[in-house]
Structure formats: structure tokens, C-alpha cells
């Protein structure tokens, strides 16, 4: 049996839709249940940021999670497939009336994504002071907590509604199918089999 960690919400639903298409049956979590067993798979309903942890520690063989989360956590996992779900950008946001000032010796950034932020500014050889926040990131520049933010941008509506604009895009992200290193080698036939089936659906080639 393959155990697959899914991030609660839309990506989990869309992933289960793909499994429903592949196996021609309905895959869905019951109410508030956190485990779903069907067709030789065990799905775990976990928080988005926890998916790579479940996979890296071997509690799940496979997981579906955003490339931004994979990049941020820098865990040793196998990156199987871009599932092209939940496409978004990781971007620097600033107040509408501001411009990003690269000449400053030190830029203050509020973000959930500390590693992505540090690596991006390090590549540009710009000093950065990162303030870790857990939510409502857009608030930080508005109240003077930070010069800018680094956050996920989907449609850009949240930033716009809070008087912010995208100053620079750091990376594109979408949900990826990942595997635990040992599971990938130990259960390679099963994992490559489901990889092929999912890829056919993602590429629109399911018969």
C-alpha cells in the first residue's frame, strides 16, 4: 500500500479528482476524517507545510505539495512530477507608492518563507533582515514593520486590496508529486506506475 500525504483544501480535492479519473471511482475524505483508504492507497489529510515532513520522515511514501514549500524546507526528497495544480508565484510585495530600493544597505522583509527570501537576496548580494510572520503578511509594510514582503501571489487580489503591488517575482510554484527517498527505491515499480497514470491525466492524455 502507498501512503500519500495531501495538503488540506483545494490541492487535496484536485489530487483526489485525478485519482478518481484514473481508477474510475470516487476518492474523497469523509467529513473531518484525516485518513482515507481506497484502491490500495492511504491518503493523509495534513497541513500544507507539513507534507514534506511526513514524506521526508517516511510516514508517507508520497506527497503533493507546492514547489515553494519544497524549496523553503530544503528537505532531501525525490521530486517526481509537476502536477500543474495551484499555480502561483512567490513575489516581493511593496506599498503601491514605493519602489524597491536596492541601494539600501539592508532591506527589511516580512515573510513566512525565510529561506527562499534569504537565498534570493543573497544571490543579489543585498543584505536582508528577515522578519518571520505566520499570517497576514500584507499588514507588515502598512504598519512599518517591514519595507516589503515575500509571499505567495495567486491572482494578486489580496495584495491589491491592501494597497500593495508586486515589485519582483522570485519563482513560479505549483503542486509537485514528491516521494520519500527510501520509499522511491523500495517501491519503485508501484511509484513509477502511479507516476505514469498521474502524468497522463496532467498532460490530458488519459484515454
Amino acid at each position: 500500500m502507498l501512503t500519500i500525504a495531501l495538503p488540506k483544501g483545494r490541492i487535496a480535492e484536485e489530487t483526489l479528482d485525478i485519482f478518481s479519473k484514473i481508477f474510475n471511482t470516487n476518492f474523497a475524505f469523509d467529513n473531518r476524517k484525516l485518513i482515507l483508504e481506497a484502491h490500495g492507497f492511504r491518503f493523509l489529510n495534513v497541513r500544507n507545510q507539513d507534507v514534506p515532513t511526513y514524506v521526508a520522515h517516511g510516514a508517507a511514501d508520497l506527497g503533493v505539495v507546492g514547489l515553494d514549500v519544497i524549496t523553503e524546507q530544503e528537505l532531501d526528497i525525490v521530486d517526481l512530477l509537476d502536477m500543474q495544480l495551484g499555480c502561483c508565484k512567490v513575489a516581493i510585495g511593496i506599498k503601491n507608492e514605493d519602489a524597491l530600493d536596492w541601494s539600501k544597505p539592508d532591506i527589511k522583509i516580512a515573510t513566512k518563507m525565510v529561506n527562499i527570501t534569504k537565498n534570493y537576496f543573497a544571490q543579489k548580494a543585498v543584505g536582508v533582515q528577515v522578519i518571520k510572520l505566520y499570517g497576514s503578511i500584507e499588514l507588515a509594510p502598512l504598519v512599518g514593520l517591514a519595507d516589503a514582503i515575500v509571499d505567495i501571489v495567486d491572482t494578486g487580489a489580496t495584495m491589491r486590496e491592501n494597497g500593495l503591488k508586486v515589485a519582483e517575482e522570485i519563482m513560479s510554484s505549483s503542486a509537485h508529486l514528491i516521494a520519500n527517498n527510501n520509499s522511491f527505491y523500495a517501491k519503485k515499480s508501484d511509484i513509477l506506475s502511479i507516476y505514469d497514470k498521474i502524468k497522463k491525466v496532467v498532460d490530458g492524455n488519459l484515454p
Partner: protein
Amino acid sequence: MIFEHEIPSDSKLYFGKSAKIKRDIESRSSQLLESLGFEEIVTPVFSYHQHDSFENQSQLIKLNDDHNHTVTLRADSTPDVVRIATKRLGRSMESKKWFYIQPTLNFPTQEQYQIGGEVLQGNFSEALDVTISLLQTLELQPILQLANIRIPQLLNEKYGISLELLKSMQIEKILANDLPWIERLVAIHTIDDLSDLNMFPDDIKQELLKIKLEAQRLDYEPLIISPLFYAKMRYYDSLTFKMFSGNALLAMGGEYVIDDLKAAGFAIYTDECIAMKIRINEENK
């Protein structure tokens, strides 16, 4: 605030039952290794040569000696065992087979007890056979994974697949390369998958053949073949193996070259073996 009873994260504490299991594992292993002609060596915790071994230097705990040379705490026993055995002991001792029972230390505070061996001028089969015997002595039978680091190296050097893709195993991107045999290479999993190698180019075929011959020689189950596995130790240059159960890595080894000396070595990860023995004992209750 640090409590009086607190120990640093990832450092190891054994007492009572677990300490007894640790002593038993080390005792049984040393007896077997001595019976196989290995000499014991204990190397310094402080080393000048660790940076040669690691791709990721941030794992090393660094300090400076009295001449301000960088010294690192031992994060890998192999380079020091080989250098001390060849450069210092080579003049007075004939042994080509050395074993050690000592921990390695990684940044920031990670300890890992190991039982390891180096066979100078030895080959892969010898290192693997000793490792299998050791784990059998400890009544453990994990999955044995055979690989050959020359295959990912060749894919990078001659077939244009980036080593970064191979190290992080980005399967979709690896399979997207326009090589008629790449899908088959990625899918190789059992010894039966190596029965016909004719579709592969000669250089890849030759390296797959080395895995095949090793797999055919062995009488071990469960055995898997992973041609693309990239062992992240700088000195490995040919066949490598890994033994694991679930997420626990119990042993690793392979052929390597240090200072132009061909050798083969292995390490048993004692902490994982202790955890597994405790788990098995509890399941058998």
C-alpha cells in the same frame, strides 16, 4: 534557558536497556571483524581532512588549532582512517583491513555512532560481504540497494543530464531527456531488469554489468537495483550499496579512491540498529 538535565538536540544518550544493546552490537561486531582479519583503529575526534569528504561543508563543526589552521570535528571516519593507516601506520603495520567503532559529529550538535571498516586495496564485494555478515550477526535483514555512482556521473558528463537533477532525483525532468533508453534505466529495480542490457550504450552498459555481476554473486533478499542513486560522498567512484528498513539507514558503503589509493569501505549506523533492535524486541513481547 538550559535545564540541568537537558542535552543538545540530536546528541545521543543511552542507558539501561539501550546502552546494553549498544554494547552488545559493538561487542559482536568487533569479534566478527577481528575473526575476519581486521585490525581496530581509533582516530582523533579532531581532523584536518574532513572537508575533502563532504559536498555540503555546512555539516562540519569547525574550529582552529594553535596555528590558526582550520580543524573540524570528525564527521566521517574514512578519510582519517585511510590516511593514518597508509601514511603513518603503513611503515610499521602490514594490515590492509581496519575497523573502527566511534561516533561522527555533525553541525550543530548531531552525534552518530558507527561501526565501520576500510579494506585498503580491497574491492566492493569484500566490503559488502562483511557488512551483510555483520547485520546477519545482529539478526537484521534490511533491504540491500546496489548502485553505481559512475552511471549518474556518465549521464552528466556524456549525456547532458545535470548532476543537480540527478542528485535531487527530479524524475520528470530526467525522463524528459531525449535518450531512447532513459525510461528503462530509471525503471530498473530488480536483477531480472538487468537480464538484457543491449539497448544501453556501451559505457552505461559496462557500469550496469558491474551491478549485475555483483547482484548475481549475492545470495541476499531483499535486494533492489538503483542505477541512478547518487551517494553524496565525494570519494565514491564506482559501486555503492545502502541497506535500509523503512526510513532507517542501517549501513552504507562502496568503492572509493583517496590519495590515489583504491579501497572499499562500509559503515553500520549503530543508533539506527539499536532503535530497530528495541522495536523488534517490543514486537516479539
